């Protein structure tokens, strides 16, 4: 199983994401944003957290127009897996691979703290190691994690069981407490909280490790 982690100027969780993939048994290659193709045999593309292009213009907007994004889109169209965390979620939204938008937190401040999330669906390769309704704790660290979408989009996400995680307490103003969503084919997950920061007992939590483990298994059998 093989993961590629995209690196944009300003990405700062690229190494953290690579470590989490490796712990789950993946081989990992870092891919520079100016590249136009992914390495051969990539099963999962990780879009890491950080401040790609300084969050200038809009979070994720410039990264979503990087040369590598064409290859990401082809990978997803082929049914490949993609995981966008924090700034990675913002990038996925900006590329149109996931619906909605992420705007400034309701209280207008950066928030970094561990938060409790409800696993809303286990029918995805990212969440099938959890139980439905389970509470998991991942840290958040963002200024622009307030998820918004049109009523139609929210209805579509709910109807198709595409909300993967919700915040137990609405920390940032997100519509319907949404913390993470799946694509229509359920192989692309974008979420604001950081499972890769909760994948090691020495750092105070392992709730996120299951996400990477189940993903690694699924990607190989896909």
């Amino acid at each position, binding site marked *: 199983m093989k993961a590629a982690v995209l690196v944009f*100027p*300003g990405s*700062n*969780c690229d*190494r*953290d994401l690579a*470590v*989490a993939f490796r712990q789950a048994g993946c081989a990992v290659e870092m891919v520079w944003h*100016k590249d136009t193709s992914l390495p051969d045999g990539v099963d999962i593309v990780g879009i890491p*957290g*950080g*401040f790609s*292009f*300084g*969050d*200038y213009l809009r979070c994720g907007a410039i990264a979503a127009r990087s040369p590598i994004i064409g290859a990401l889109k082809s990978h997803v169209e082929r049914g490949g897996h993609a995981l966008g965390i924090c700034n990675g979620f913002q990038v996925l939204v900006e590329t149109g691979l996931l619906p909605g938008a992420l705007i400034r937190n309701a209280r207008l*401040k*950066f*928030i*970094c*703290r561990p938060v409790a999330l409800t696993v809303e669906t286990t029918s995805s390769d990212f969440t099938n190691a959890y139980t439905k309704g389970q509470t998991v704790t991942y*840290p958040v*660290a963002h*200024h622009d994690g307030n998820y918004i979408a049109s009523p139609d989009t929210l209805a579509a996400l709910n109807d198709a069981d595409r909300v993967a995680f919700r915040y137990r307490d609405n920390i940032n103003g997100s519509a319907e407490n949404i913390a993470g969503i799946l694509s229509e084919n359920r192989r692309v997950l974008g979420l604001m909280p*950081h499972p*890769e*920061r909760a*994948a*090691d007992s*020495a*750092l*105070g939590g392992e709730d996120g490790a299951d996400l990477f483990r189940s993903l690694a298994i699924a990607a190989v059998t896909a």
Partner: protein
Amino acid sequence: MTEPTITEDVIAAHGLTPQEYANILRILNRAPSFTELGIFSAMWNEHCSYKSSKKWLRTLPTEGPQVICGPGENAGVVDIGDGQAVVFKMESHNHPSYIEPYQGAATGVGGILRDVFTMGARPIAAMNALSFGEVTHPKTKRLVAGVVEGVGGYGNPFGVPTIGGEVRFHAAYNGNCLVNAFAAGLADADKIFYSAASGIGMPVVYLGAKTGRDGVGGATMASAEFDDTIEEKRPTVQVGDPFTEKRLLEATLELMASGSVISIQDMGAAGLTCSAVEMGDKGGLGIKLNLNLVPVREKAMTAYEMMLSESQERMLMVLKPEKEAEAKAIFDKWDLDFAIVGETIAEDRFLIVHNDTIMADLPLSKLASTAPEYDRPWVETPAAAPLGDVPKIAAIDALKSLISSPNYARKHWVWEQYDSQVMADTVQAPGLGAGIVRVHGTDKMLAFTSDVTPRYVKANPFEGGKQAVAEAYRNLCAVGARPLATTDNLNFGNPEKPEIMGQFVGAIKGIGEACLALDTPIVSGNVSLYNETDGQGILPTPTIGAVGLITTPDALISGLPSAGDFAVVLGATQGHLGQSALLAEAFGREDGDAPVVDLVAERRNGTFLRENGALVSAATDLSDGGLALAGFEMADAANVGLRLVSEEIGQLFGEDQARYLVAVHPDNLETFLSQAKVAGVPATNAGTFGGDKITLGAESAPLSTLSQIYRSAFAEKLA
């Protein structure tokens, strides 16, 4: 372009005294050009030259077997075993932050991060120690909001976890806030980069962001008192771009790994001037710069402006000529400017050419070596009057007076605006003693703390200086870390006043004595003087940043007690209430002497705790607020009650030094107490953890009620 004429007013506006100007005339044997005057003022201001403090800084202990590089470079370097080193420093950005809080704080963080990665180290932890005026002062809220947002606004995108710090409020900071930023990085011990240039005719390379007019004269501004013209100084504050700094970090580390770098210096205060002179001076070489090659943001910048600009995110480097193409490719990859702007020369000259005209031609070695040095007159701080009677107060009320004050309330409103987890190696985030990060890819950990109790330093500079070091030492021991070394950020008022200079001298003597006794040499630091407004100085605030090493996970001591643990006090309690938090917060009094620090007891007690960490469920140091506050903080963090037997205010809130509160499981109590006896460490069983109340002697209150106060007080007063 003709330069302005040099008049007495022009000289004074550059912060140079008539005597200093006379020295310039003597050195040059002629009058300086306007650009040359600017260069002298940049090199000779207090901020860059340490002219008032040098004499005393030399007395600090800076050596030890663990020290790879002490003061004098961009940051200190300390051995952490296995061929690795921790590189760290603390630096103030006080004056700019008061003028323009967001950018002042942001560029303070940017500057200290650059100091660390200039040495070849990837930053792995940051802290910041902040001092503000009274909560009720009209400026305070805006300063707190701006500074905190600025710290996060730079550190978060850069991608360094902010894992600790301090926030205090006191009327003495009404006219001058303090922003002290600390950063630490990790490097291979044999791959440290220094600033001394070597080789003649080597290319001098400019890297990073373009040069603009921002920050021109910033270092001179930071070397003066404030008055009511402060708003006019806003253009001297630099503007930060963390995105560029993050790219500069990655590009610089890539360039270093490629083996192209001979020497490197970041452009901080006084920008191009200071960095070029430092590289030349340390290498015993001259430097020639052609300013037409400097990447600029604005048209028609003068030589003077370019030499004094403090535009951020810039580096100067001496490069191996054969590696030029490879180096340029790395900077192109990161879309950063890369320009050869000059060369090293054999003659002792600092030669600045602009538009084919020589704008400055100065003896380079004299710029640094003949900088003025003053032995400022000083008077010893008079002994504090003895403490008067302390009014009666119920113990729970006393605790409430502390935890409802923004000085002692929980400060998550601040630290949750900082990314404390990025890099995914944070073992202990802010809120519970020292911050701890794992050394990536190993089981080792580094612990970081910053401490000072300015009230103590004012009452008794010598003991207060000792105490700042001792408290930092204790915070490291309390998590099981072996204290390695320290950095000092010395914030004082106007050194031309003998009583202020006396505070400085006293504090330095205390810091030196403590660092020697505790084997924690000072490896880097920064001095910030003239923290005065309209003649009112700040509390003397020598912030000490300290770094400790935890070699195995077993050695780590938790801060979270369990129900059933005994609460044991290590160290002797006399009940010292002079200059205590209780006096200040409950009664608005700041009297009596600072507590005396017994450095032998500090070392013995700290060593004992580290060596017996396996017998301990949790530990914390006792500092201001004493046993009651430390016990409450532990109880709150673990959400478990606490009963302390004593109801005597001195026992509960006294601030005697060299003490810890330790939670010990009943099975380990006997062994722990007997080991303490053998080691000669006083150990007193003071109570037990458990239940859902805080009980102090005969009084109690629900933990949940107190936690509610403790966790909401800061935001209620400052949000």
